[in-house]
Protein backbone atom coordinates (compact mmCIF):
# COMPACT_ATOMS: atom_id res chain seq x y z
CA UNK A 1 0.00 0.00 0.00
CA UNK A 2 2.80 2.33 0.86
CA UNK A 3 4.35 1.87 -2.56
CA UNK A 4 1.16 2.93 -4.30
CA UNK A 5 0.75 6.12 -2.33
CA UNK A 6 4.40 6.94 -2.97
CA UNK A 7 4.29 6.20 -6.66
CA UNK A 8 1.31 8.33 -7.56
CA UNK A 9 2.64 11.75 -6.71
CA UNK A 10 5.98 10.84 -8.24
CA UNK A 11 4.43 9.87 -11.58
CA UNK A 12 2.36 13.02 -11.59
CA UNK A 13 5.41 15.10 -10.83
CA UNK A 14 7.45 13.53 -13.59
CA UNK A 15 5.15 14.76 -16.36
CA UNK A 16 3.29 17.68 -14.83
CA UNK A 17 3.30 19.53 -18.13
CA UNK A 18 1.80 16.60 -20.06
CA UNK A 19 -0.84 16.21 -17.40
CA UNK A 20 -1.62 19.90 -17.56
CA UNK A 21 -1.92 19.76 -21.37
CA UNK A 22 -4.25 16.77 -21.18
CA UNK A 23 -6.42 18.45 -18.56
CA UNK A 24 -6.56 21.72 -20.48
CA UNK A 25 -7.42 20.06 -23.82
CA UNK A 26 -10.05 17.89 -22.14
CA UNK A 27 -11.69 20.92 -20.56
CA UNK A 28 -11.57 22.68 -23.92
CA UNK A 29 -13.34 19.82 -25.69
CA UNK A 30 -15.99 19.72 -22.97
CA UNK A 31 -16.52 23.47 -23.34
CA UNK A 32 -16.83 23.06 -27.10
CA UNK A 33 -19.50 20.40 -26.59
CA UNK A 34 -21.55 22.72 -24.37
CA UNK A 35 -21.01 25.57 -26.83
CA UNK A 36 -22.29 23.36 -29.66
CA UNK A 37 -25.50 22.76 -27.69
CA UNK A 38 -25.86 26.50 -27.06
CA UNK A 39 -25.39 27.24 -30.76
CA UNK A 40 -27.88 24.55 -31.76
CA UNK A 41 -30.44 25.92 -29.31
CA UNK A 42 -29.59 29.57 -30.06
CA UNK A 43 -30.21 29.45 -33.80
CA UNK A 44 -33.76 28.25 -33.18
CA UNK A 45 -34.92 30.02 -30.01
CA UNK A 46 -38.04 31.26 -31.75
CA UNK A 47 -40.58 29.19 -33.65
CA UNK A 48 -40.22 29.54 -37.39
CA UNK A 49 -37.58 27.10 -38.58
CA UNK A 50 -35.13 27.05 -41.46
CA UNK A 51 -37.79 25.85 -43.88
CA UNK A 52 -40.14 28.79 -43.29
CA UNK A 53 -37.14 31.12 -43.44
CA UNK A 54 -36.22 29.75 -46.88
CA UNK A 55 -39.73 29.77 -48.34
CA UNK A 56 -40.80 33.10 -46.84
CA UNK A 57 -44.15 34.19 -45.49
CA UNK A 58 -46.34 33.11 -48.40
CA UNK A 59 -45.36 29.44 -48.38
CA UNK A 60 -48.17 26.92 -48.65
CA UNK A 61 -48.42 24.43 -45.77
CA UNK A 62 -47.79 21.49 -48.10
CA UNK A 63 -44.62 23.05 -49.56
CA UNK A 64 -43.44 23.77 -46.03
CA UNK A 65 -44.07 20.19 -44.93
CA UNK A 66 -42.25 18.89 -48.01
CA UNK A 67 -39.16 21.06 -47.41
CA UNK A 68 -39.20 20.25 -43.68
CA UNK A 69 -39.12 16.59 -44.54
CA UNK A 70 -36.31 17.17 -47.03
CA UNK A 71 -34.25 19.05 -44.43
CA UNK A 72 -35.10 16.46 -41.74
CA UNK A 73 -36.78 19.19 -39.68
CA UNK A 74 -39.68 16.85 -38.87
CA UNK A 75 -37.44 14.82 -36.61
CA UNK A 76 -37.12 15.67 -32.88
CA UNK A 77 -34.49 18.24 -31.88
CA UNK A 78 -32.15 15.92 -29.91
CA UNK A 79 -31.99 13.59 -32.90
CA UNK A 80 -31.19 16.48 -35.24
CA UNK A 81 -28.52 17.73 -32.84
CA UNK A 82 -26.85 14.33 -32.68
CA UNK A 83 -26.90 13.86 -36.44
CA UNK A 84 -25.40 17.36 -36.89
CA UNK A 85 -22.68 16.58 -34.36
CA UNK A 86 -22.05 13.14 -35.90
CA UNK A 87 -21.72 14.71 -39.33
CA UNK A 88 -19.25 17.29 -38.01
CA UNK A 89 -17.05 14.52 -36.63
CA UNK A 90 -16.93 13.02 -40.13
CA UNK A 91 -16.14 16.36 -41.71
CA UNK A 92 -19.70 16.84 -42.99
CA UNK A 93 -20.82 20.37 -42.11
CA UNK A 94 -24.31 19.88 -43.51
CA UNK A 95 -26.25 21.35 -46.41
CA UNK A 96 -26.82 25.09 -46.81
CA UNK A 97 -30.53 25.93 -46.72
CA UNK A 98 -30.44 28.80 -49.20
CA UNK A 99 -27.66 27.78 -51.61
CA UNK A 100 -28.55 24.06 -51.84
CA UNK A 101 -24.85 23.26 -51.60
CA UNK A 102 -22.73 21.51 -49.01
CA UNK A 103 -21.62 24.07 -46.37
CA UNK A 104 -18.04 22.89 -46.71
CA UNK A 105 -17.89 23.86 -50.43
CA UNK A 106 -19.38 27.25 -49.63
CA UNK A 107 -16.94 28.17 -46.91
CA UNK A 108 -13.57 26.63 -47.79
CA UNK A 109 -12.55 29.49 -50.10
CA UNK A 110 -13.89 32.06 -47.65
CA UNK A 111 -12.04 30.47 -44.75
CA UNK A 112 -8.78 30.78 -46.69
CA UNK A 113 -9.49 34.47 -47.40
CA UNK A 114 -10.22 35.18 -43.74
CA UNK A 115 -7.12 33.27 -42.73
CA UNK A 116 -4.96 35.44 -44.97
CA UNK A 117 -6.45 38.61 -43.49
CA UNK A 118 -6.00 37.41 -39.90
CA UNK A 119 -2.47 36.14 -40.48
CA UNK A 120 -1.19 39.37 -42.05
CA UNK A 121 -2.75 41.35 -39.20
CA UNK A 122 -1.13 39.10 -36.62
CA UNK A 123 2.30 39.22 -38.27
CA UNK A 124 2.22 43.02 -38.07
CA UNK A 125 0.52 43.14 -34.68
CA UNK A 126 3.14 41.30 -32.63
CA UNK A 127 6.28 43.36 -33.44
CA UNK A 128 4.39 46.68 -33.54
CA UNK A 129 2.72 46.15 -30.16
CA UNK A 130 6.04 45.15 -28.57
CA UNK A 131 7.81 48.15 -30.12
CA UNK A 132 5.27 50.78 -29.05
CA UNK A 133 4.54 49.12 -25.71
CA UNK A 134 8.21 49.01 -24.74
CA UNK A 135 8.80 52.54 -26.05
CA UNK A 136 5.93 53.89 -23.94
CA UNK A 137 6.98 51.96 -20.82
CA UNK A 138 10.64 52.99 -20.94
CA UNK A 139 9.58 56.61 -21.36
CA UNK A 140 6.79 56.44 -18.79
CA UNK A 141 5.41 59.85 -17.88
CA UNK A 142 7.14 61.66 -20.72
CA UNK A 143 5.50 63.12 -23.83
CA UNK A 144 6.03 60.08 -26.05
CA UNK A 145 4.34 57.88 -23.44
CA UNK A 146 1.44 60.35 -23.11
CA UNK A 147 1.06 60.44 -26.88
CA UNK A 148 1.04 56.64 -27.22
CA UNK A 149 -1.12 56.01 -24.17
CA UNK A 150 -3.78 58.62 -24.84
CA UNK A 151 -4.10 57.91 -28.55
CA UNK A 152 -4.36 54.17 -27.92
CA UNK A 153 -6.99 54.77 -25.24
CA UNK A 154 -8.99 56.73 -27.80
CA UNK A 155 -8.57 54.20 -30.62
CA UNK A 156 -9.58 51.25 -28.40
CA UNK A 157 -12.99 52.81 -28.02
CA UNK A 158 -13.69 53.03 -31.75
CA UNK A 159 -15.93 50.45 -33.40
CA UNK A 160 -14.07 48.75 -36.26
CA UNK A 161 -16.69 49.83 -38.80
CA UNK A 162 -16.07 53.45 -37.84
CA UNK A 163 -12.30 52.99 -38.23
CA UNK A 164 -12.90 51.28 -41.58
CA UNK A 165 -15.28 53.96 -42.80
CA UNK A 166 -12.91 56.79 -41.82
CA UNK A 167 -9.98 55.03 -43.53
CA UNK A 168 -12.07 54.58 -46.69
CA UNK A 169 -13.10 58.26 -46.65
CA UNK A 170 -9.48 59.40 -46.31
CA UNK A 171 -7.43 56.92 -48.33
CA UNK A 172 -9.89 55.67 -50.95
CA UNK A 173 -12.25 58.61 -51.54
CA UNK A 174 -10.01 61.62 -50.90
CA UNK A 175 -6.49 60.43 -51.72
CA UNK A 176 -7.54 57.63 -54.11
CA UNK A 177 -4.58 55.49 -53.05
CA UNK A 178 -6.47 52.22 -52.61
CA UNK A 179 -9.88 50.88 -53.69
CA UNK A 180 -12.79 51.52 -51.27
CA UNK A 181 -14.02 47.92 -51.53
CA UNK A 182 -12.00 44.72 -51.43
CA UNK A 183 -13.67 42.44 -53.94
CA UNK A 184 -12.09 39.10 -54.75
CA UNK A 185 -13.39 36.93 -57.61
CA UNK A 186 -14.25 33.35 -56.66
CA UNK A 187 -11.27 31.07 -57.16
CA UNK A 188 -8.82 33.96 -57.01
CA UNK A 189 -6.48 34.65 -54.13
CA UNK A 190 -6.58 38.07 -52.46
CA UNK A 191 -2.78 37.92 -52.43
CA UNK A 192 -2.76 38.45 -56.21
CA UNK A 193 -3.89 42.05 -55.60
CA UNK A 194 -2.35 43.08 -52.28
CA UNK A 195 -3.63 46.67 -52.46
CA UNK A 196 -7.16 45.52 -51.57
CA UNK A 197 -5.83 44.10 -48.30
CA UNK A 198 -4.31 47.39 -47.08
CA UNK A 199 -7.42 49.00 -45.59
CA UNK A 200 -8.97 45.85 -44.03
CA UNK A 201 -5.65 45.01 -42.35
CA UNK A 202 -5.23 48.62 -41.20
CA UNK A 203 -8.75 48.54 -39.73
CA UNK A 204 -8.14 45.32 -37.81
CA UNK A 205 -4.74 46.57 -36.66
CA UNK A 206 -6.20 49.89 -35.49
CA UNK A 207 -8.35 48.41 -32.80
CA UNK A 208 -6.27 45.38 -31.81
CA UNK A 209 -2.93 47.21 -31.76
CA UNK A 210 -4.15 49.91 -29.39
CA UNK A 211 -5.28 47.27 -26.93
CA UNK A 212 -2.07 45.26 -27.20
CA UNK A 213 0.16 48.33 -26.77
CA UNK A 214 -1.55 49.27 -23.51
CA UNK A 215 -1.19 45.77 -22.10
CA UNK A 216 2.45 45.43 -23.14
CA UNK A 217 3.14 48.83 -21.58
CA UNK A 218 1.50 47.77 -18.31
CA UNK A 219 3.45 44.50 -18.24
CA UNK A 220 6.75 46.24 -19.01
CA UNK A 221 6.18 48.90 -16.35
CA UNK A 222 5.69 46.19 -13.76
CA UNK A 223 8.83 44.36 -14.88
CA UNK A 224 10.88 47.56 -14.89
CA UNK A 225 9.92 48.24 -11.27
CA UNK A 226 10.98 44.77 -10.11
CA UNK A 227 13.91 43.85 -7.89
CA UNK A 228 15.81 41.91 -10.55
CA UNK A 229 15.78 44.86 -12.92
CA UNK A 230 16.99 47.08 -10.09
CA UNK A 231 19.70 44.51 -9.40
CA UNK A 232 20.73 44.38 -13.05
CA UNK A 233 21.01 48.16 -13.12
CA UNK A 234 23.06 48.21 -9.94
CA UNK A 235 25.34 45.59 -11.47
CA UNK A 236 26.14 48.15 -14.12
CA UNK A 237 24.45 46.69 -17.18
CA UNK A 238 23.52 49.37 -19.64
CA UNK A 239 19.85 50.31 -19.82
CA UNK A 240 19.35 48.79 -23.28
CA UNK A 241 20.48 45.41 -22.02
CA UNK A 242 18.40 45.71 -18.87
CA UNK A 243 15.27 46.43 -20.91
CA UNK A 244 15.77 43.74 -23.54
CA UNK A 245 17.32 40.92 -21.53
CA UNK A 246 15.69 41.30 -18.15
CA UNK A 247 12.47 43.28 -18.34
CA UNK A 248 11.15 42.28 -21.77
CA UNK A 249 11.68 38.56 -21.22
CA UNK A 250 9.64 38.67 -18.07
CA UNK A 251 6.98 40.81 -19.66
CA UNK A 252 6.61 38.31 -22.51
CA UNK A 253 4.29 35.91 -20.68
CA UNK A 254 1.53 38.45 -20.09
CA UNK A 255 2.11 39.65 -23.64
CA UNK A 256 1.29 36.20 -25.01
CA UNK A 257 -2.02 36.34 -23.19
CA UNK A 258 -2.69 39.79 -24.56
CA UNK A 259 -2.04 38.62 -28.08
CA UNK A 260 -4.30 35.62 -27.55
CA UNK A 261 -7.03 37.99 -26.35
CA UNK A 262 -6.43 40.09 -29.44
CA UNK A 263 -6.66 37.12 -31.78
CA UNK A 264 -9.92 36.17 -30.10
CA UNK A 265 -11.13 39.70 -30.58
CA UNK A 266 -10.04 39.48 -34.24
CA UNK A 267 -12.68 36.78 -34.78
CA UNK A 268 -15.39 39.30 -33.94
CA UNK A 269 -13.59 42.19 -35.62
CA UNK A 270 -13.10 40.26 -38.83
CA UNK A 271 -16.85 39.67 -39.23
CA UNK A 272 -17.55 43.40 -39.20
CA UNK A 273 -14.43 44.42 -41.13
CA UNK A 274 -15.10 41.99 -43.97
CA UNK A 275 -18.64 43.34 -44.17
CA UNK A 276 -17.37 46.94 -44.33
CA UNK A 277 -15.06 46.21 -47.27
CA UNK A 278 -17.18 43.57 -49.00
CA UNK A 279 -14.27 41.17 -48.55
CA UNK A 280 -15.44 37.61 -49.31
CA UNK A 281 -14.34 35.92 -46.09
CA UNK A 282 -15.95 33.67 -43.51
CA UNK A 283 -17.24 36.63 -41.50
CA UNK A 284 -19.03 38.28 -44.39
CA UNK A 285 -20.49 34.87 -45.32
CA UNK A 286 -21.72 34.44 -41.76
CA UNK A 287 -23.34 37.89 -41.68
CA UNK A 288 -25.14 37.13 -44.96
CA UNK A 289 -26.21 33.70 -43.73
CA UNK A 290 -27.68 35.28 -40.58
CA UNK A 291 -29.72 37.77 -42.64
CA UNK A 292 -30.99 34.92 -44.82
CA UNK A 293 -31.57 32.76 -41.71
CA UNK A 294 -29.62 29.93 -43.30
CA UNK A 295 -29.56 27.90 -40.09
CA UNK A 296 -27.33 24.96 -41.17
CA UNK A 297 -24.72 27.37 -42.51
CA UNK A 298 -24.81 29.62 -39.43
CA UNK A 299 -24.53 26.82 -36.89
CA UNK A 300 -21.61 25.11 -38.63
CA UNK A 301 -19.63 28.32 -39.22
CA UNK A 302 -20.37 29.51 -35.68
CA UNK A 303 -19.12 26.26 -34.18
CA UNK A 304 -16.02 26.38 -36.37
CA UNK A 305 -15.19 29.91 -35.17
CA UNK A 306 -15.93 28.98 -31.55
CA UNK A 307 -13.54 26.02 -31.89
CA UNK A 308 -10.79 28.33 -33.18
CA UNK A 309 -11.53 30.71 -30.29
CA UNK A 310 -11.20 27.95 -27.67
CA UNK A 311 -8.10 26.48 -29.33
CA UNK A 312 -6.33 29.85 -29.23
CA UNK A 313 -7.11 30.10 -25.53
CA UNK A 314 -5.55 26.71 -24.86
CA UNK A 315 -2.45 27.40 -26.96
CA UNK A 316 -1.95 30.73 -25.16
CA UNK A 317 -2.28 29.09 -21.74
CA UNK A 318 0.25 26.41 -22.68
CA UNK A 319 2.67 29.01 -24.06
CA UNK A 320 2.47 30.97 -20.82
CA UNK A 321 3.22 27.88 -18.76
CA UNK A 322 6.08 27.18 -21.12
CA UNK A 323 7.46 30.72 -20.77
CA UNK A 324 7.28 30.83 -16.96
CA UNK A 325 9.25 27.83 -15.65
CA UNK A 326 7.79 28.35 -12.19
CA UNK A 327 4.31 27.41 -13.42
CA UNK A 328 5.52 24.16 -14.95
CA UNK A 329 5.99 22.49 -11.60
CA UNK A 330 3.30 24.28 -9.60
CA UNK A 331 -0.15 22.75 -9.29
Amino acid at each position, binding site marked *: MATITLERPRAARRYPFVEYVARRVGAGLLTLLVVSML*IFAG*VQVLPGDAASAVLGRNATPSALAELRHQMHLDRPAPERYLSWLGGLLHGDLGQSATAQQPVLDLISGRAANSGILALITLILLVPLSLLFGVLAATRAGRWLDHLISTSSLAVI*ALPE*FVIGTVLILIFAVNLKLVPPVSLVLPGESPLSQPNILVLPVATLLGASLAQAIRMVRAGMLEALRSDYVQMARLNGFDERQVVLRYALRNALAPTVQVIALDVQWL*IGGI*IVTEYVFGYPGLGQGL*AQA*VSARDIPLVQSVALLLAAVFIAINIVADLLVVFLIPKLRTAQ
Partner: protein
Amino acid sequence: MSSRSGAFPVRAAGWPRFAHRPSARAGLVLGGIILLIALGGPFVAPHPFDAIVGPAFQAPDSHFPLGTDFLGRDVLSRVLYGGRTVVGLAGAATLLAYLIGVSIGLLAGFSRSLLDPLLMRAMDVLLAFPPVLFLLVLATGAGPSPVALVLGVATVNVPNIARIVRSATLDVSVRGYVEAAVARGEPTAVLLAREILPNIANTLLADCGIRFTGSILLVAAVNFLGLGLQPPTADWALMISENRDGLTIQPWALAAPALMIALLTICVNLVADGVARSLGRSLDSESAVR
Protein backbone atom coordinates in the same frame (compact mmCIF):
# COMPACT_ATOMS: atom_id res chain seq x y z
CA MET B 1 -2.44 45.44 -1.82
CA SER B 2 -5.02 45.84 0.94
CA SER B 3 -5.84 49.38 -0.14
CA ARG B 4 -7.11 47.98 -3.46
CA SER B 5 -10.08 46.19 -2.01
CA GLY B 6 -11.78 49.41 -1.00
CA ALA B 7 -12.19 48.76 2.68
CA PHE B 8 -12.04 52.50 3.37
CA PRO B 9 -14.06 54.99 1.42
CA VAL B 10 -11.86 56.69 -1.16
CA ARG B 11 -14.70 58.89 -2.30
CA ALA B 12 -13.21 61.92 -0.59
CA ALA B 13 -10.09 61.64 -2.72
CA GLY B 14 -12.01 60.47 -5.76
CA TRP B 15 -13.30 63.65 -7.35
CA PRO B 16 -10.13 65.80 -7.06
CA ARG B 17 -8.05 62.92 -8.41
CA PHE B 18 -10.50 62.46 -11.25
CA ALA B 19 -10.67 66.16 -12.07
CA HIS B 20 -6.88 66.39 -12.01
CA ARG B 21 -6.64 64.37 -15.24
CA PRO B 22 -7.14 66.67 -18.23
CA SER B 23 -8.20 63.78 -20.47
CA ALA B 24 -10.89 62.75 -17.98
CA ARG B 25 -12.15 66.34 -17.69
CA ALA B 26 -12.24 66.76 -21.47
CA GLY B 27 -14.03 63.41 -21.80
CA LEU B 28 -16.62 64.41 -19.22
CA VAL B 29 -17.42 67.77 -20.86
CA LEU B 30 -17.44 66.58 -24.48
CA GLY B 31 -19.17 63.31 -23.56
CA GLY B 32 -21.83 65.29 -21.74
CA ILE B 33 -22.46 67.36 -24.87
CA ILE B 34 -22.73 64.24 -27.04
CA LEU B 35 -25.14 62.64 -24.55
CA LEU B 36 -27.20 65.83 -24.57
CA ILE B 37 -27.37 65.73 -28.38
CA ALA B 38 -28.23 62.04 -28.34
CA LEU B 39 -31.06 62.41 -25.83
CA GLY B 40 -32.32 65.92 -26.63
CA GLY B 41 -31.62 65.94 -30.37
CA PRO B 42 -35.07 64.77 -31.49
CA PHE B 43 -36.63 67.89 -29.89
CA VAL B 44 -34.58 70.31 -31.98
CA ALA B 45 -34.37 68.34 -35.24
CA PRO B 46 -35.58 70.51 -38.18
CA HIS B 47 -37.28 67.58 -39.96
CA PRO B 48 -38.88 64.26 -38.93
CA PHE B 49 -36.34 61.42 -39.14
CA ASP B 50 -38.29 59.56 -41.83
CA ALA B 51 -39.41 62.49 -44.01
CA ILE B 52 -38.11 62.62 -47.55
CA VAL B 53 -37.24 66.26 -48.04
CA GLY B 54 -35.16 66.36 -51.22
CA PRO B 55 -33.25 64.38 -53.82
CA ALA B 56 -31.01 61.51 -52.67
CA PHE B 57 -27.36 62.16 -51.74
CA GLN B 58 -27.52 65.93 -52.06
CA ALA B 59 -24.37 67.73 -50.91
CA PRO B 60 -24.60 70.04 -47.89
CA ASP B 61 -26.18 73.46 -48.59
CA SER B 62 -27.99 76.15 -46.62
CA HIS B 63 -31.21 74.08 -46.38
CA PHE B 64 -29.56 70.83 -45.38
CA PRO B 65 -26.32 71.60 -43.48
CA LEU B 66 -25.22 67.94 -43.71
CA GLY B 67 -26.91 67.11 -47.02
CA THR B 68 -29.40 64.31 -47.63
CA ASP B 69 -29.12 60.53 -47.37
CA PHE B 70 -29.75 57.65 -49.81
CA LEU B 71 -33.52 58.26 -49.78
CA GLY B 72 -33.34 62.05 -49.68
CA ARG B 73 -33.87 62.45 -45.94
CA ASP B 74 -32.17 65.23 -43.96
CA VAL B 75 -28.89 63.87 -42.54
CA LEU B 76 -28.72 66.48 -39.75
CA SER B 77 -32.16 65.50 -38.46
CA ARG B 78 -31.31 61.83 -38.60
CA VAL B 79 -28.04 62.45 -36.74
CA LEU B 80 -30.02 64.31 -34.06
CA TYR B 81 -32.46 61.38 -33.80
CA GLY B 82 -29.91 58.60 -34.20
CA GLY B 83 -28.10 58.78 -30.86
CA ARG B 84 -31.08 57.85 -28.72
CA THR B 85 -31.06 54.23 -29.83
CA VAL B 86 -27.28 53.90 -29.44
CA VAL B 87 -27.26 55.23 -25.87
CA GLY B 88 -30.63 53.68 -24.96
CA LEU B 89 -29.98 50.14 -26.13
CA ALA B 90 -26.41 50.06 -24.79
CA GLY B 91 -27.52 51.61 -21.49
CA ALA B 92 -30.35 49.12 -21.08
CA ALA B 93 -28.04 46.21 -21.89
CA THR B 94 -25.40 47.41 -19.40
CA LEU B 95 -27.99 47.92 -16.66
CA LEU B 96 -29.50 44.48 -17.22
CA ALA B 97 -26.03 42.93 -17.28
CA TYR B 98 -25.26 44.48 -13.87
CA LEU B 99 -28.55 43.30 -12.37
CA ILE B 100 -27.87 39.71 -13.42
CA GLY B 101 -24.08 39.75 -13.09
CA VAL B 102 -24.05 41.27 -9.59
CA SER B 103 -26.68 38.78 -8.39
CA ILE B 104 -24.74 35.82 -9.76
CA GLY B 105 -21.44 37.15 -8.41
CA LEU B 106 -22.87 37.78 -4.92
CA LEU B 107 -24.51 34.36 -4.81
CA ALA B 108 -21.39 32.57 -6.02
CA GLY B 109 -19.06 34.51 -3.75
CA PHE B 110 -21.14 34.26 -0.62
CA SER B 111 -22.85 30.87 -0.82
CA ARG B 112 -19.82 28.64 -0.05
CA SER B 113 -21.69 25.73 -1.59
CA LEU B 114 -21.87 23.80 -4.82
CA LEU B 115 -23.67 26.81 -6.28
CA ASP B 116 -20.35 28.67 -6.61
CA PRO B 117 -18.46 26.31 -8.94
CA LEU B 118 -21.68 25.59 -10.83
CA LEU B 119 -22.39 29.24 -11.58
CA MET B 120 -18.76 29.99 -12.38
CA ARG B 121 -18.42 27.10 -14.86
CA ALA B 122 -21.54 28.42 -16.61
CA MET B 123 -19.83 31.81 -16.83
CA ASP B 124 -16.71 30.15 -18.28
CA VAL B 125 -18.76 28.60 -21.06
CA LEU B 126 -20.24 31.99 -21.95
CA LEU B 127 -16.73 33.45 -22.01
CA ALA B 128 -15.71 30.77 -24.52
CA PHE B 129 -18.05 32.43 -27.03
CA PRO B 130 -16.78 35.37 -29.13
CA PRO B 131 -19.33 38.14 -28.30
CA VAL B 132 -20.17 39.13 -31.88
CA LEU B 133 -20.60 35.47 -32.78
CA PHE B 134 -22.97 34.96 -29.85
CA LEU B 135 -25.09 37.90 -31.01
CA LEU B 136 -25.17 36.61 -34.59
CA VAL B 137 -26.32 33.16 -33.44
CA LEU B 138 -29.04 34.84 -31.38
CA ALA B 139 -30.04 37.04 -34.33
CA THR B 140 -30.42 33.92 -36.48
CA GLY B 141 -32.78 32.34 -33.97
CA ALA B 142 -34.74 35.40 -32.92
CA GLY B 143 -34.59 37.43 -36.13
CA PRO B 144 -33.40 41.04 -36.13
CA SER B 145 -34.96 42.58 -33.01
CA PRO B 146 -33.87 45.25 -30.53
CA VAL B 147 -35.15 43.15 -27.61
CA ALA B 148 -32.98 40.19 -28.58
CA LEU B 149 -30.08 42.61 -29.11
CA VAL B 150 -30.35 44.06 -25.58
CA LEU B 151 -30.73 40.60 -24.03
CA GLY B 152 -27.78 39.32 -26.04
CA VAL B 153 -25.43 42.18 -25.22
CA ALA B 154 -26.41 41.93 -21.55
CA THR B 155 -25.66 38.18 -21.57
CA VAL B 156 -22.25 38.78 -23.12
CA ASN B 157 -21.40 41.22 -20.31
CA VAL B 158 -22.67 39.08 -17.44
CA PRO B 159 -19.70 36.66 -17.00
CA ASN B 160 -17.08 39.38 -16.53
CA ILE B 161 -19.23 41.29 -14.06
CA ALA B 162 -20.07 38.11 -12.13
CA ARG B 163 -16.38 37.20 -11.89
CA ILE B 164 -15.35 40.60 -10.57
CA VAL B 165 -18.22 40.74 -8.08
CA ARG B 166 -17.52 37.19 -6.90
CA SER B 167 -13.86 37.84 -6.14
CA ALA B 168 -14.66 41.17 -4.42
CA THR B 169 -17.35 39.41 -2.37
CA LEU B 170 -14.91 36.68 -1.34
CA ASP B 171 -12.52 39.45 -0.20
CA VAL B 172 -15.12 41.31 1.81
CA SER B 173 -16.98 38.39 3.35
CA VAL B 174 -14.11 37.40 5.64
CA ARG B 175 -13.96 40.88 7.21
CA GLY B 176 -14.87 41.37 10.84
CA TYR B 177 -17.99 43.44 10.26
CA VAL B 178 -19.45 40.78 7.97
CA GLU B 179 -18.70 38.02 10.43
CA ALA B 180 -20.24 40.12 13.18
CA ALA B 181 -23.40 40.49 11.10
CA VAL B 182 -23.46 36.75 10.48
CA ALA B 183 -23.10 36.17 14.21
CA ARG B 184 -25.98 38.58 14.87
CA GLY B 185 -28.05 36.25 12.72
CA GLU B 186 -28.91 38.73 9.97
CA PRO B 187 -30.74 37.14 7.04
CA THR B 188 -28.62 36.62 3.92
CA ALA B 189 -30.51 39.19 1.84
CA VAL B 190 -29.87 41.92 4.43
CA LEU B 191 -26.25 40.83 4.75
CA LEU B 192 -25.67 41.08 1.03
CA ALA B 193 -27.48 44.40 0.64
CA ARG B 194 -26.16 46.18 3.74
CA GLU B 195 -22.74 44.76 4.47
CA ILE B 196 -21.35 43.44 1.21
CA LEU B 197 -22.80 45.52 -1.62
CA PRO B 198 -21.72 48.93 -0.23
CA ASN B 199 -18.21 47.60 0.21
CA ILE B 200 -17.81 46.35 -3.32
CA ALA B 201 -19.40 49.47 -4.83
CA ASN B 202 -16.02 50.98 -5.74
CA THR B 203 -15.03 47.84 -7.59
CA LEU B 204 -18.23 48.08 -9.61
CA LEU B 205 -17.82 51.80 -10.24
CA ALA B 206 -14.28 51.36 -11.55
CA ASP B 207 -15.49 48.77 -14.01
CA CYS B 208 -18.85 50.02 -15.31
CA GLY B 209 -17.39 52.51 -17.79
CA ILE B 210 -15.66 49.92 -19.93
CA ARG B 211 -18.76 47.71 -19.80
CA PHE B 212 -20.80 50.62 -21.17
CA THR B 213 -18.24 51.28 -23.94
CA GLY B 214 -18.20 47.56 -24.75
CA SER B 215 -22.00 47.52 -24.94
CA ILE B 216 -22.05 50.53 -27.28
CA LEU B 217 -19.51 48.81 -29.55
CA LEU B 218 -21.51 45.58 -29.70
CA VAL B 219 -24.90 47.23 -30.18
CA ALA B 220 -23.44 49.43 -32.92
CA ALA B 221 -21.74 46.48 -34.66
CA VAL B 222 -24.96 44.43 -34.82
CA ASN B 223 -26.97 47.42 -36.01
CA PHE B 224 -24.32 48.15 -38.62
CA LEU B 225 -24.60 44.57 -39.90
CA GLY B 226 -28.34 45.20 -40.30
CA LEU B 227 -29.23 42.49 -37.77
CA GLY B 228 -30.63 44.72 -35.02
CA LEU B 229 -32.75 47.82 -35.59
CA GLN B 230 -34.48 47.95 -38.95
CA PRO B 231 -35.08 50.88 -41.36
CA PRO B 232 -36.46 53.50 -41.30
CA THR B 233 -35.11 53.87 -37.74
CA ALA B 234 -32.55 56.63 -37.42
CA ASP B 235 -29.50 55.09 -35.73
CA TRP B 236 -25.89 56.21 -36.11
CA ALA B 237 -24.56 52.74 -36.89
CA LEU B 238 -27.40 51.89 -39.26
CA MET B 239 -26.90 55.26 -41.04
CA ILE B 240 -23.26 54.45 -41.80
CA SER B 241 -24.28 51.11 -43.22
CA GLU B 242 -27.21 52.29 -45.37
CA ASN B 243 -25.40 55.27 -46.88
CA ARG B 244 -22.31 53.36 -48.02
CA ASP B 245 -23.30 53.65 -51.69
CA GLY B 246 -22.98 57.42 -51.45
CA LEU B 247 -19.43 57.25 -50.18
CA THR B 248 -17.98 59.29 -53.04
CA ILE B 249 -20.89 61.65 -53.74
CA GLN B 250 -22.13 62.47 -50.23
CA PRO B 251 -19.48 61.45 -47.67
CA TRP B 252 -21.19 63.55 -44.96
CA ALA B 253 -24.01 61.01 -44.74
CA LEU B 254 -21.41 58.57 -43.36
CA ALA B 255 -18.91 60.91 -41.78
CA ALA B 256 -21.40 62.68 -39.48
CA PRO B 257 -22.78 59.57 -37.72
CA ALA B 258 -19.28 58.01 -37.68
CA LEU B 259 -17.92 61.09 -35.93
CA MET B 260 -20.74 61.02 -33.36
CA ILE B 261 -20.18 57.34 -32.46
CA ALA B 262 -16.42 57.89 -32.32
CA LEU B 263 -16.73 60.91 -30.00
CA LEU B 264 -19.25 59.14 -27.77
CA THR B 265 -17.17 55.99 -27.25
CA ILE B 266 -13.88 57.87 -26.88
CA CYS B 267 -15.37 60.19 -24.23
CA VAL B 268 -17.00 57.35 -22.30
CA ASN B 269 -13.67 55.52 -22.35
CA LEU B 270 -11.70 58.59 -21.17
CA VAL B 271 -14.14 59.12 -18.30
CA ALA B 272 -14.05 55.41 -17.43
CA ASP B 273 -10.25 55.50 -17.39
CA GLY B 274 -10.30 58.60 -15.17
CA VAL B 275 -12.78 57.04 -12.74
CA ALA B 276 -10.81 53.78 -12.56
CA ARG B 277 -7.54 55.62 -11.94
CA SER B 278 -9.01 57.91 -9.29
CA LEU B 279 -10.15 54.76 -7.49
CA GLY B 280 -6.61 53.43 -7.69
CA ARG B 281 -7.15 50.92 -10.45
CA SER B 282 -6.01 50.65 -14.01
CA LEU B 283 -8.17 49.57 -16.91
CA ASP B 284 -5.15 47.81 -18.38
CA SER B 285 -5.30 45.12 -15.73
CA GLU B 286 -8.83 44.21 -16.70
CA SER B 287 -9.47 42.02 -19.66
CA ALA B 288 -10.63 45.14 -21.41
CA VAL B 289 -13.32 46.50 -23.58
CA ARG B 290 -14.20 43.88 -26.13
